[in-house]
Every structure is written in structure tokens, then in C-alpha cells.
């Protein structure tokens, strides 16, 4: 009971604070809206304002529950003091009675349904939104960056989640997301009423609100429904400006556009679509999108197969605008390459469908009822792929906390939740853990960096594999000798494309028999993978710079000395047998780059000892204290058998994985 109250309190504080912020902004701009529009705009615009304020607090390391509550209270009082009565616009054609009741009944039914799902322990894994929220919360602000590891950027919607999370934990954040979906549906209905298409608006709102994709997305703390909501209100604001020519409305539209961009920058959170599949995804995968879904992939509902009928709305001015908005939303989809991102498109397309079908008596209610039935979780489970991403069994007992939360989450997020609990028990709060598989980070206080999530993480994973794979080790040294020259920079350039990546473990400069000592002030650059250029100058056996993909003509790595150096040779330690034919040395005299003729000689490098130790040393150097390794990982067996050599200590085993402490 206490958990449920806190959960509700978290959502209420966040939404009230956001709404109050929005009301203050709308009041300041003196924009005339109907009561419903005013409330909806206040919530959505306010969510953006609230997000910005919380982001600022996190930056100041003031992300604390008391601060959030105080801020919300302050805003609510201010909004109360400046409240004013908004007049209804002159024309707001209503819905017909049947459609109005259908809308009320179905909206209420699905809202309750979704509420129960959202109130059940949060089991969204993909995207790790709450994982990042929890990290910020544990650090009471933005945690420090790990050198060389680029963390995915935080979505702006995660800041309202942070407020809710601080009070009501995970489910509270999910409720905030659900509120934005509800606002989207009400906004769509409101927009269409203003345009005189009440029935079409109610139809479209229900189509989106009841869609299995929207349902599963909005009952978790994710971004897609929020993005669809913000984008739609941005469009709505532009339409209001177009109608009333209130220039202040453009400020609202601009703010919403910025908020939408900030919400949409989050990393890929679902099935990543391969580049080659994108045209097919956009044009031909209608069945998968609407009816079946696929592994880990949601679907909009079979009635969306009728979306092409929406093209008939092109005969109307509003229909043309809607399709333009849908096309612009599709650009977003191409950029993010996530199928869930189809939700904003569905918003505009369903409105167009409503316009196309509104003069066909009985069709809108028929389709809405059919969509409602087909979207019920129990029904959707019968026709979609078994492992598609959708709402599962009715979690009423879990929502009421009559089911053990651990048991529920273990079953729903197997094995990620079990891993997270093990890490929670093994690692201290905010301790840095390097994970070779993704645990449910929202449920552990340690700071977990997942290898697959960034190029830096993947490089570290490869570094751990280096002792086990000869091909990853430096097998030979290539010496490029030339006449002694004085230069302030040196550049190694691939003059022709190659079928393999260019990999350099270590790049050394020589003056006679003496290696030129590396200095702090050297500036390193590379045409590809520049953040890893330092790995070719770090004297480590296990790190390297590479072009990642097959080397292209013109790829280079460069070192700028800051002062003139006399050098007569360069040695490259790299994998044995790597082609050097197209490699050229260019030297700079400060004004011009000159190609230098070189003599090449190769010599093998003796097998090095202590590579395992070097890998662990590098991890420790970056601040990691724990290593999480699933048994399926290529390193797992060697780590387990040679833990003494690696200098790691297994501290916990759970669900086919081991957690090591770095000694």
C-alpha cells in the first residue's frame, strides 16, 4: 500500500509540477485556448520546462527528492496565483453522441487497463532509460564520465522520470509516460474537434491510444509515446498559429520542437534495423508493423492495415497537412532506425484515416470497436508472434504488490533482473562495473557500463579478448625508415583502399636508435575512430587504434608534436601479416605536408607475457572495480580458469554469469 501511494505521489508531483510550469508559461505568453487545450498544452509544454529545470538541478548535483517537491510546490502555488479564466473558442463542433460515448467508454477502459500494467513492477529493459535515471539519482546529479567511453545521451523525458523515480521509484516514471500518452489521445480529439472533424478525431485518438504498440510502450518508462505526444502538440501549436496568427503560439511550437528533439535523441531502444532493411521496413513490412510484430518488436494493430485509405484525406487541406506531418515524422524514423518510432507517424496517419472515413456511416465506430477487441492483450497474444513486444498477462496482483516483486521481475526480465540483483549485492553504490552483457541496470545501485553500448565499451571488450586471440595481438613490427628530418607533425596515410581495417597497436618514433620520448603536449588525430587514437601511443599490449571498417583511401593517424622533432624512422606494432603496401609517411614543416620516401622492414614480435594483467590494469585505470561476465562470453572460461593470472576474484555467481572483483 505504501509503495502504491509513493508511486502515485511521484507521478502526481511530477505531472503537477510540469502542468504548473506550463500554465505559467502559457499565462506569460497570453495565449487564448479552450479549457481542455489549455490543460493539455500546459502539461506537454510544462513537461519540457520541467525537464529543463530538473536537468539544471542534476547538473548542479541538486537532484534530491526534497528539492523536486519544493520546486513543484513553488510552481503550483505560482500557477494558482496567476490563474485566469480561459474562454472557449467560438466554434468547437462536438462529436456525435454515439461516438462520444464510445470514446469515453473505450478511453476509460484502456486507461484503467494500462494503469494496472504501468503500476506493476517496471520490466522495460531495452533502452535503459530508468538505468540512466537511477545512475543520476544515485549520484544526485550527472555521474562523472568514464574516460574513452561515450555514454548514450540522455533523453529529455528522463528528467521528469527522475523526479517521479525519486519519490515513487520505477512505476512512478511509467505512470508519467502513460499520462503523456493519454494527453496525446485527448489532444488528438481536441485538435480534430477544433477543425470540425470531431468523430474523426475521436477515432484517431482511440486508434493510437488502444494500439498494442502504444500500450506496451506507454506502460513502461520509455520515450516513444512521449515523443509522439510532443511532436503532435508541436504540430497542433503550428496549426493554432496558422488559424489565429498569434505569434506567441510559435514560441510554444518552437519550445515543443526543441523538447521533441531532446526527447528523441535517446539511443536505439529496440530492434535495431539494419541499414539494408530500411527501405523494406519503410515500404514493404506492413504486415509485421501492424499485425504480427516480430521478436522483441511491437505492432500497431491489424486495423492499421487500412492506413492507405488515409490517402483519400489528401483531398482536404487538413489531410494534406497531416500527411506532410507524417512524412516529416518518417524522417525521424529513418534517423533513429527504430520501429517503435512509427508511433508519431501513426498519430498523423490515423487522423488522416479518420478524415477519409468520416463520411462513410458506421465505419469509424466499427473500426474502433474492432481495433479495441484486437488490441486487448489477451486477444493480441493469439495472433501476433509469440515473442513479439506487447502487453503480456494481466498483472493485477503484481500491480497491487500481492505478488513478490523479485519473483515477478525475475520471470519477466530473465536473466537480466537476476544479474542486476547479483551486482547489487556484490558491488557498492556507485561502484563502476564493466559488464559484458546487459543487466537490468534500473535495479542496481552500482554504475554499470555495458560493453556493447558504445564503441569505447566494445574496444574494452575486445581488449579483454586480446590475450585469448592471437589475431588481436601485435605480431610484428614494421619499421619505416627515412632520411633524418625535422618536423612538427607526422601523419601515416593509407593511399589506397584495403579489404581489411588498418590496425595499429603501437606507433613509435625514432631518432637513430633512440625512441623519441612521448610528451603530454602531443596532439593525436585520426580520420576514423579519433577517440581511440591515443591507444596507439599508450605503451599497452592490449589497446590499439583501428579504422574499425576496411581502410579507405585517405584514412590516416597523425601526431602533432607541438615543437620540431628530428626523426628518421617510425615503427608500427600491428597484427602479423597486415598489408603495408599502401602506407605512406607524411611530415609537416609547419606549413606544408610532404610525402617522405621510406624503406620498410618487418620483424616479428616475441609473444608477450602479462597481457591479461595489462587488460585488467587498463580497466582499473579507467576506474572500473568490478567485471560482470556471462558464461556465454568468449572470455568467461579463461577468466574462470585463470582468475589468478588475470588478477580477478570471483565474488558472486548468478544465472550463468560471474561477477569478478578487479584485484
Amino acid at each position, binding site marked *: 500500500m505504501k509503495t502504491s501511494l509513493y508511486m502515485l505521489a511521484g507521478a502526481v508531483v511530477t505531472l503537477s509540477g510540469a502542468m504548473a510550469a506550463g500554465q505559467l508559461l502559457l499565462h506569460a505568453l497570453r495565449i487564448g485556448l479552450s479549457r481542455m487545450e489549455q490543460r493539455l498544452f500546459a502539461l506537454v509544454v510544462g513537461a519540457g520546462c520541467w525537464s529543463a529545470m530538473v536537468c539544471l538541478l542534476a547538473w548542479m548535483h541538486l537532484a534530491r527528492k526534497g528539492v523536486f517537491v519544493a520546486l513543484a510546490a513553488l510552481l503550483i502555488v505560482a500557477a494558482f496565483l496567476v490563474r485566469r479564466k480561459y474562454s472557449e473558442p467560438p466554434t468547437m463542433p462536438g462529436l456525435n453522441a454515439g461516438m462520444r460515448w464510445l470514446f469515453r467508454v473505450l478511453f476509460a477502459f484502456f486507461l484503467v487497463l494500462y494503469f494496472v500494467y504501468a503500476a506493476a513492477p517496471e520490466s522495460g529493459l531495452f533502452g535503459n532509460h530508468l538505468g540512466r535515471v537511477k545512475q543520476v539519482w544515485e549520484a544526485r546529479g550527472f555521474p562523472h564520465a568514464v574516460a574513452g567511453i561515450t555514454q548514450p545521451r540522455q533523453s529529455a523525458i528522463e528528467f521528469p522520470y527522475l523526479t517521479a523515480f525519486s519519490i515513487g521509484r520505477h512505476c512512478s516514471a511509467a505512470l508519467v509516460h502513460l499520462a503523456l500518452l493519454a494527453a496525446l489521445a485527448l489532444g488528438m480529439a481536441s485538435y480534430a474537434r477544433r477543425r470540425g472533424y470531431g468523430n474523426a478525431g475521436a477515432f484517431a485518438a482511440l486508434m493510437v491510444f488502444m494500439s498494442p504498440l502504444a500500450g506496451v510502450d506507454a506502460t513502461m518508462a520509455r520515450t516513444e509515446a512521449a515523443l509522439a505526444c510532443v511532436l503532435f502538440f508541436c504540430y497542433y501549436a503550428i496549426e493554432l498559429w496558422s488559424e489565429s496568427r498569434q505569434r506567441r503560439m510559435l514560441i510554444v511550437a518552437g519550445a515543443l520542437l526543441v523538447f521533441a528533439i531532446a526527447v528523441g535523441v535517446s539511443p536505439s531502444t529496440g530492434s535495431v534495423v539494419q541499414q539494408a532493411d530500411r527501405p523494406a521496413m519503410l515500404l514493404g513490412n506492413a504486415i509485421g508493423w501492424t499485425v504480427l510484430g516480430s521478436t522483441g518488436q511491437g505492432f500497431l494493430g491489424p*486495423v492499421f492495415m487500412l492506413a492507405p485509405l488515409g490517402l483519400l484525406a489528401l483531398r482536404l487541406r487538413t489531410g494534406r497537412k497531416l500527411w506532410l506531418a507524417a512524412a516529416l515524422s518518417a524522417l525521424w524514423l529513418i534517423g533513429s532506425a527504430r520501429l517503435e518510432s512509427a508511433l508519431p507517424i501513426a498519430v498523423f496517419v490515423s487522423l488522416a484515416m479518420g478524415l477519409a472515413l468520416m463520411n462513410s456511416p458506421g465505419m469509424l465506430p466499427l473500426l474502433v470497436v474492432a481495433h479495441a477487441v484486437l488490441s486487448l492483450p489477451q486477444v493480441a497474444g493469439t495472433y501476433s508472434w509469440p515473442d513479439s513486444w506487447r502487453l503480456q498477462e494481466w498483472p493485477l496482483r503484481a500491480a497491487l504488490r500481492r505478488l513478490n516483486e523479485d519473483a515477478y521481475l525475475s520471470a519477466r526480465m530473465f536473466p537480466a533482473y537476476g544479474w542486476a540483483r547479483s551486482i547489487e549485492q556484490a558491488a557498492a553504490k556507485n561502484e563502476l562495473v564493466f559488464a559484458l552483457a546487459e543487466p537490468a541496470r534500473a535495479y542496481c545501485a552500482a554504475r554499470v557500463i555495458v560493453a556493447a553500448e558504445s564503441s569505447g565499451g566494445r574496444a574494452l571488450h575486445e581488449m579483454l579478448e586480446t590475450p585469448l586471440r592471437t589475431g588481436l595481438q601485435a605480431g610484428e613490427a614494421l619499421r619505416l625508415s627515412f632520411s633524418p628530418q625535422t618536423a612538427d607533425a607526422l601523419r601515416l596515410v593509407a593511399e589506397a583502399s584495403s579489404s581489411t581495417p588498418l590496425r595499429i597497436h603501437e606507433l613509435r618514433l625514432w631518432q637513430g636508435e633512440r625512441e623519441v620520448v612521448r610528451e603530454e603536449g602531443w596532439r593525436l588525430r585520426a580520420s576514423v575512430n579519433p577517440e581511440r587514437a591515443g591507444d596507439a601511443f599508450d605503451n599497452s599490449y592490449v589497446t590499439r587504434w583501428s579504422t574499425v571498417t576496411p581502410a579507405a583511401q585517405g584514412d590516416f593517424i597523425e601526431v602533432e608534436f607541438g615543437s620540431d622533432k628530428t626523426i628518421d624512422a617510425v615503427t608500427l606494432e600491428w597484427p602479423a601479416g597486415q598489408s603495408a603496401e599502401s602506407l605512406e609517411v607524411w611530415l609537416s614543416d609547419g606549413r606544408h605536408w610532404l610525402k617522405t620516401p621510406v624503406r620498410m622492414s618487418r620483424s616479428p614480435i616475441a609473444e608477450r607475457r602479462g597481457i591479461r594483467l595489462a587488460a585488467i590494469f587498463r580497466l582499473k585505470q579507467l576506474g572500473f572495480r568490478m567485471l560482470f561476465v556471462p558464461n556465454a562470453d568468449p572470455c568467461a572460461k579463461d577468466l574462470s580458469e585463470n582468475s589468478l593470472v588475470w588478477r580477478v576474484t570471483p565474488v558472486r555467481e548468478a544465472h550463468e554469469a560471474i561477477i569478478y572483483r578487479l584485484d
Partner: protein
Amino acid sequence: MKPSSIVWTRLAQAVAIAILAFNVYRAATCSITIDEAFTYNRFVRPAYSETLLYFDANQHVLYTLLAKATVGVFGVSEFTLRLPGVLGGALYLWVALALSRMIFGSRPMLVPALALLALNPLVLDYMSMARGYGAGLACWLGGLYLVAGWPPSPSPWQMRLLALALTASVGFNLIFIPPGLALVAWCAADTARQKGAWAGLLNHTVLPGIVGATLLLVLPMARAEPGSFYVGEKTLWKAVISISHASLLQGMHWLPARIRGWDDGIWNLANVLGWAAAACMIAGIPAGVHAMARARRVEANRVGVAVLAITWMVLAMLVAGHYIAQVPYPYTRTGIYWIPLLTLLALWLYERAATYTAARVAGCTLACAWLLLYALQIHPTYYSFFRGDAGTKHFVDVLRSLESGSRTLRLGVNWQLEQGFNFYRSKYGLNWIAPVERYAVEKPAEYYVLLPEDLPLIDKLRLQVVQRHPVSKAVLARPVQAASSP
């Protein structure tokens, strides 16, 4: 109305009722066929969730749903499974009579016209079989009747009724998509001069039709693959031949070999039927133009011109679909709509030419000869295309009389009979018969049911013939040891 008019109408109605009674009799007594049994075993018997999530050329979605209802309410039997088909047949007869009356009024030709439309062996079989072809044809023809009888400004309800008819026809079988589209296109062309007619057609016919068909078919079709649409012919000529042979030769099994000349004559006739159809379609063009110019509002001409236009449009769609999307041409039953289309076209052309005595005499003679050919193919006890299944029910009855059910029987049956035996196993609750396997005719079994092509197995497996079925030529046999044991 003249008294004689009532006589011809009453006579035609009596013929329709007689055909309906004949359909009911066949539906109740004929042995189940392989396609019907497959429909029951694969689609009707399983739960809705399984039925609606599978597509195959054999899956006639609306028929499956209706058959589930009739079987669920009245229990499993051949008749309950075929009941939606019989009702579809009744609708077809009613619509055929109505269209015949539109062309001929209450004149003597009304009766042969109805008979020509209803007694074609292919049409007659599917008026009582448990498949979607007959009911789909009835719905589509109902749509044609609606359109032919429309006033200059049809009411929204008439347009919605057309949408319902077309949706139902496509729901019964996807083969009715081209004729359905052609019918709508004809409506659009016919009403083009009316202000706002296209909007009405769009809102009351096209959109409801698309919505209805999508809702009905989206779930089963979601899992369909190109391979699911395998029934068809590779060339248009083969399609024409398949339909004409099904109309003229399917039921001629009884022809003795010694009158091969007669048989060959029919074959030759079937082969030239395609040319006759083409001739009708071409001859219809000037007739249609004349009718449009002079007597557009005459009911017979409305039917004739609509049929002519639809015939050409369907042909164009089939050719375009074949060349653009490699859709196969129709094969016998998948082109069933061609039979009433071409028959109506021929009847209308006859009606246009009937002012000339010679044409009238020739037409009547041809119609009578044609009806004779149809009549010779009527078989009350089995369906012509599925003659091999004619004995399945009989053999099941024999097995039930021979065996007490005290032991589990294994049956080795020809693959074509597997579905039928499993149907009867389910119908009679014969759990003492092991589920019949598809390709198990040579496996050890207590009884074997062999079709003529399996007869060498009698010696190979040392079988003793128990019974032969006179129509299907199938044989019920059992191993010699089993026969000699007490």
C-alpha cells in the same frame, strides 16, 4: 400481367425449388470430399484462434466461420458442414431467377435461362458443397443484380447492400476480387453523370467494402505467403479449357467406352468453347453500344451491358495481374464466376437477336442441346470432380458394421481419402480407429482402402478384397491372415 406470364414464372420458381431440393438431398447424402474434409479438419474443427491464423488456398474464411457456427449449433454431419453452401445455393437460385426475369421477363425462355445458369455441373456441385465458391458466387451475382436494378440515383442503403454483397463474396473466396472490382468500376462508370454519385459510391460502397473485407481477412492473410496461392493455370487458354471441360465433361464418367465418338465430340466442343466465349464477348460490343445508345434504361439491356463491361474488365484484370504480379489464371472452380457471366451474356445476346425467327430457333435449339449436356452430368449421389471420394462414407459404414470397436484399427488409405476418413472418425467418434495418416497406404494396417492406382498393392501386401465401390472404384481390403482368423 397475362395468365401465361404467371405460368412461366411459377414454372421457373418450381424449377428453382426443385434444384434447391436436389441440393439439399445431395448435401445430406453425398459422401464427404477431400476438400470439404480438409476444410473441416483444418479450419472448422480447431479453435477460432487457430482457424483465423492460418491461410491456405483451401481456407475460405467466411465459409469457415459460418460452418463453425452451423456445426457448433447442429453438430457434425455432412449436411451441417454444407449448410452455408446450400443457403448460398438458394441465394444463387433466387438471384439467377431474378436476373433471368430481368432479361426475359415472364416469357417461356425464362425457364431454360434459369436452368442454364443453375445446372452447369460446376455451379451445381458448389451449390451444395462445403466450400466458399458457391456462396461467394451467389453474393457476387447478388451484387450484379443490385446494380442492374438500381434506379438512376441509388439510395445509400442500396449502395451499402452492394458493399455487403461484395465483401461477403470476397470473404467467401479471394477469387471474387477481380469481378468485385469490375462491378464497382462499372457502377462508377454507370453513375458518372450523376452529381455526387462517386462520393456516394466511395462512402457507401467502396470504403465499407474495403473495411469489411480487410477486417474479415487481415488475420488469416497476415501469415499468407506467395506459395499459398498455388491454384491456377499458366496460360489464359488453359484456363478457358479447364472451365469449359469442367462444364461439359466432368460428369460424363458414365459414358461407355464404345461410344467414344460421342465422347470425342464433347471434347472437341469443350475445346472450341473458348472461341465461342470470345465470339460472344466480341459480338457483345456492338450490341452493347447499340443498347447504350437506344435503350439504356431497359432492364434487359442494363443487365447485358453491365455483364459485357464486367466480362471485359475482369479479363483485363486477369491478364494484367498475370503479367504484372504473376497471378495464375483461373483453374476450373477458381474461375467459376465466368460461367454465369458468359451464360448471361449469351442469353442477353439471344434476347437481342430473338426478333429474328431463325435466330430464335437456333438459340432455342442450342439452349436445349446445352441443357441436355448439363442434364447428362447430374449425379445425385456424388460430386463429379471428387468421384474418388464417393465411397468413403460407405466404407466407414462397412467398417462400423464389421468391427465392434474392441480393438484399435489402423487404416492404410490412399492419400486422397485420408481427410475423408479422419472426418468420419471425428463425426462418429470412432476412437477405435487410429488417426489416419496421409501417406500410409503401404504401412501395416488392419484394413486398406485403395483407389484404382493402388490396386497392385493387393498382391504386394497379400490383401483380400472385402468390398468394391461401384462409383469411386475404390476397394476395401484386409490382409489375408486377418481375413482367415476367427
